[in-house]
């Protein structure tokens, strides 16, 4: 994409600012989720997306509202980036009736039917079939919808992923397999579990594979745009590997991490490769925003998130009688 004086970052200025805002909202959401956990206000655990915001935002900003995504156990970022409402998300995290899934799903199963999020999934790699089937359905129904299937590099160990990539390639299905390589399968570095080159896996299926800096939202967006365009035009699937890092633990309770990664490594990523700081600096350099404007974006996000938390804390739990609802349609 040509960089001109009117679009100094190579993308539409509005889009660049929106992506900044979305990343900031996700960061604030996750910080609040962490606080809810630490304050013992949230049942169970949750997996924070902090550090990976550029992947969800860059990818979802390449999609239309009627396009689909499938998500993972680390799914709040995907959900927000696809357009979900903060109040209903927090309500779901707290198991409240106003939540997206009426409190039956929780953090690991949030789905947002209205915005095409077919659901987070607590089975590693488990949504690859759903994503590919939604793509097949789009093709059969004659729409030009595209599906982005988010998964962590841990899912590269799951056979299902390769089964569905094979079919997507055979039948030219409009699906983007977006592998977020945050480098750790829980508490084990991926190099200990993953043979060969990650991106090279696509070549065996004849699927175009592309690696992208997952801390650069502009790069992710452009890369996924290409992949989405290919899918929409009938060109079939794409495999994208976004290299990224989770700044926090595997889940909110994973606080002592020294046995699997160093503080230095974490500090390096946080200091030098924070996707929000990075885009912020570029926006300021290009005179698209002042530091004050960025600060006010952050303040607005914090207010929105705080209001969402209040909403969820005040919301009632579902009636106990709802336990047997919706087992069957």
């Amino acid at each position, binding site marked *: 994409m040509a960089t001109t004086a009117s679009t100094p970052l190579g993308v539409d200025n509005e889009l660049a600012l929106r992506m900044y805002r979305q990343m900031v909202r996700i960061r604030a959401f996750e910080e609040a989720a962490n606080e809810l956990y630490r304050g013992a206000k949230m049942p169970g655990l949750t997996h924070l997306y902090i550090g990976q915001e550029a992947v969800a935002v860059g990818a979802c900003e390449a999609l239309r509202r009627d396009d689909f995504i499938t998500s993972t156990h680390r799914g709040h970022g995907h959900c927000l980036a696809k357009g979900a409402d903060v109040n209903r998300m927090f309500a779901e995290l707290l198991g409240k009736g106003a939540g997206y899934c009426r409190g*039956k799903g929780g953090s690991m199963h949030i*789905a947002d039917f209205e915005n095409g999020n077919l*659901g987070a*999934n607590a089975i590693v790699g488990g949504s690859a079939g759903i994503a590919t089937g939604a793509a097949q359905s789009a093709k059969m129904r004659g729409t030009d919808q595209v599906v982005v299937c988010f998964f962590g590099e841990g899912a590269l160990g799951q056979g299902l992923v390769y089964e569905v990539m094979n*079919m997507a390639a055979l039948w030219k299905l409009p699906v983007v397999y977006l592998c977020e390589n945050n480098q750790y399968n829980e508490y084990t570095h991926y190099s200990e579990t993953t043979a060969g080159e990650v991106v090279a896996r696509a070549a065996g299926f004849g699927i175009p594979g592309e690696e992208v800096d997952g801390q650069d939202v502009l790069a992710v967006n452009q890369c996924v745009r290409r992949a989405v365009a290919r899918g929409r035009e009938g060109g079939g699937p794409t495999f994208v590997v976004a290299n990224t890092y989770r700044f926090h633990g595997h889940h909110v309770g994973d606080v002592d991490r020294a046995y699997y990664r160093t503080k230095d490594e974490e500090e390096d990523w946080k200091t030098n490769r924070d996707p929000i700081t990075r885009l912020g600096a570029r926006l300021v350099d290009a005179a698209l925003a002042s530091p004050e404007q960025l600060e006010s974006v952050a303040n607005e996000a914090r207010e929105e998130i705080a209001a969402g938390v209040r909403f969820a804390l005040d919301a009632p739990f579902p009636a106990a009688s709802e336990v047997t609802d919706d*087992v*069957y*349609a």
Partner: protein
Amino acid sequence: MSTLETQAPSGTRVITQSQAVNEALAEELRRDSTVYIIGEDVAEAGTPFKVMSGLVEEFGPERVIDSPISEPGITGLALGAAMTGMRPVVDIMFGDFLTLIMDQLVNQAAKIRYMSGGHFKAPLTVRTTLGATRRSAAQHSQSLHAWVAHVPGLKVALPATPADAKGLMKAAIRDDNPVVIFEDKMNFATKGPVPDDDDLVLPLGVADVKREGEDVTIVATSSMVYVALEAADLLAGDGISAEVVDPRTLVPLDRDGLIRSAQKTGRVVVVDEGHQSYGASAELAATIAAGAFWELDAPVQRAGALDVPIPFSPVLEDQTVPTGESVYELAKGLVR
């Protein structure tokens, strides 16, 4: 009556179970453009059992899709398609291969409606087999329907006759939930009358009395219905009148239908081809034991597959499944 009626009463045709399933699929493919079939060798081959012969010729390879040998993959694809507006029928060639699709079935399809608070639906049909005595040995002979019936969110159908096979298949396809329908692979050539009705849809959850009787109830599923009828004939020779009740679906289960028959006869044998321990027969027996307790004159008896892997040698395999003779002995023991 020694077997189910194979003469065609008026308004019916006698066809095989295989033809009945074929008709059900063809009618639903014709009726609803969102219905499609995906599976291994379903198109030109029409499945290894030839159940789908002719379908790809009428509906084309976009709706009768030959897939790679990827059972989890095709089940996952079908779920994604079902969640976004389609009504897939997944063909799993042998029921033994259900083990491969368990994550997609149990963790994904069965739960998506509930986990989403009722926002998604998964109108997905999985068609597969059960049944031993085909000399297919341990990995192609199991009857694993109890595994599926154990999981809330899934429905389970076990047709015994061509008419039931047709009516239940059509109902499964039209149902908004994942339904797993098991056909006994030994019964594809079994004939029976099927109503001349191109809209034969049987409600799921309604048991069928396959033979009326007074002295003892034999509750039988799938091909065990024929075993039960054989036993009923033998019992009749001893002057014992046996009622044969076929639940037809395990989920939903027509508990009242089973209990009613048990209350009438006071004695019950449950016959199911799954392994007896922790199998479907246990749930059926417990339902009846609790529901008809005051009317029962004897403990509910069960007959299932022996708790061994299904062996190859015919001499061995034949010992593993209930027979007319063994069910007759069991029932007679209750009435004496």
